[in-house]
């Protein structure tokens, strides 16, 4: 290739990455940077007026009861949903890793709830969990498990309902990731353990678990990030329910500050706080597990 042609070829290379770079820079990185700046302003969400207030938004949040309660509710929600998703996802993956007739079909069916829009999952479960006409209460009453219908969307149970719906919707992700890894574990490892007379539990603990540990660490990290910042499921579950404030997690609170109270600065400050917490946890997480996490 001649020098001119090579120069032209280099130009093509840069030209090819330019649109992607430009889009990511202007529509992802710039908004994030702008968010930090916004958090230092007192700004109305719709009108142009704005005033620099330094760290006032953060000071306000520091003594804001609603902030601390949303942080607590968000933590409860994250810890429970992540724990249940991992346990269910791994258990289901172990089942689907066995050879049986119709396995591909079962895998497809189990995966499906992860693929549907959140709004469908939410309206569907609001109907199933309806206190008067819902089929869940009907079954529980018929089986004598409860005496009174449970008010699933009431203050006492709305968090439980939210966790149920979220786990239902998202554990297939864990299942699929773990299943992909399980299928690469050499059969000989199990044969050897069987010859040694290891029970199923011991085979899981000593053969399977060490093999899926790496991917499990990545899955927990991803799911933690996603559950901690989960907005649509939480918001749609709480909206219209009188008890919505009992599931007002941090992302919902940030949304409300911006789009219900029109305090864009406070909303942005909440977003920045969330991001800082995620970043710090991710760094710590990688320090702890860097060598083990199975990152691409």
């Amino acid at each position: 290739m001649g020098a001119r042609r090579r120069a032209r070829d280099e130009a093509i290379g840069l030209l090819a990455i330019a649109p992607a770079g430009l889009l990511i820079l202007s529509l992802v990185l710039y908004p994030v940077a702008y968010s930090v700046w916004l958090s230092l302003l007192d700004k109305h969400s719709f009108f142009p007026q704005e005033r620099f207030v330094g760290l006032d938004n953060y000071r306000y949040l520091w003594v804001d009861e609603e902030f601390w309660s949303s942080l607590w509710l968000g933590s409860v929600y994250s810890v429970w949903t992540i724990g249940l998703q991992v346990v269910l996802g791994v258990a289901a993956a172990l089942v689907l890793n066995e050879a049986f007739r119709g396995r591909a079909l079962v895998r497809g069916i189990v995966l499906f709830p992860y693929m549907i829009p959140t709004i469908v999952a939410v309206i569907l479960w609001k109907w199933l969990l309806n206190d008067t006409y819902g089929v869940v209460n009907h079954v529980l009453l018929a089986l004598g498990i409860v005496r009174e219908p449970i008010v699933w969307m009431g203050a006492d149970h709305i968090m439980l309902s939210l966790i149920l719906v979220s786990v239902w919707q998202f554990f297939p992700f864990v299942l699929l990731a773990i299943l992909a890894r399980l299928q690469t574990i050499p059969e000989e490892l199990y044969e050897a353990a069987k010859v040694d007379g290891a029970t199923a539990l011991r085979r899981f603990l000593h053969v399977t678990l060490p093999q899926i540990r790496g991917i499990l660490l990545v899955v927990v990290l991803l799911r933690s990030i996603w559950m901690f910042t989960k907005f649509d499921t939480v918001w749609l579950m709480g909206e219209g329910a009188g008890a919505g404030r009992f599931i007002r997690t941090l992302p919902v609170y940030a949304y409300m500050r911006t789009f219900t109270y029109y305090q864009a600065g406070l909303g942005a400050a909440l977003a920045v706080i969330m991001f800082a917490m995620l970043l710090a946890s991710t760094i710590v997480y990688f320090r702890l597990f860097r060598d083990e996490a199975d990152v691409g």
Partner: protein
Amino acid sequence: MNRWRLRRRAAGAAIYLGAGLLVLQAAFPFAWMASTSLKPPGEVFAQPPSFVPAAPTLDNFHRLFTGTTFLVYFWNSVLVSGLAVLLTTAVGAAGAYSLTRYRYPGREKIAVLVLCTYMFAPIMVVIPFFILVKRVGLENTHLALVLAFTSFCLPFTLWLMRAFFQTIPIELEEAALVDGAGRVRAVLHVVLPLALPGIIATSIFTFILAWNDYVFTRILISSDRLKTLPVGVQDLFHAALIDWGLIMAAGTMITIPALVFFVAVQRYLIRGWGAGAVKG
């Protein structure tokens, strides 16, 4: 020997039981939704509820199509998701090709970038995004949505497509280049056909994200005729006294195309997952 066989039987039964429970928890809610959507108003609230509608009717669907703007939302969803897929695929494929075939600083940072965008969950970006979009006058347009979805899917698309492009031997294009084909032609005729599974996989992920999005559409779109399905159906849900038959018909109408699509692409979806979304 007998005991061993018995044990194997029990293990087999346990697996079928587990698989049965998995299918039940995933499928029953949808079956119940479909059943409710076929019930006339009186039967929806009947006690005790029955799984098979006594007098099945398409009345709920009829009302959904004629009495609401459901079909407009549906078309908007198709349009916006389709455009987002086209744009993301074109920009992503070009970028990923460049990342694997050219050298410049920062091209190894793509994995970090993907992880970072995972941390910038939509809810964190949507506030500044909204203000930005308003400033350039794009609020309440489908273009704003397409751009939002594209920018959100791009890092992931770049990452996944790069993995696919890396498996295509460079010698193949070099042969085409030596034969006198220009770079662009070599890519179009040699590289892209080989990268097709990767392109399909990323298209599917983009499509699902765009099709399912709630938060960007809620914030960026205000006029009813521009809304996509998730936001439109939520408004339907809040319109008045909840009409469960109608709502379940809407849910069913969103789910059926999703199901068809899912069955058609499942193969690629799982392959893409293995290739880079989650390694292993």
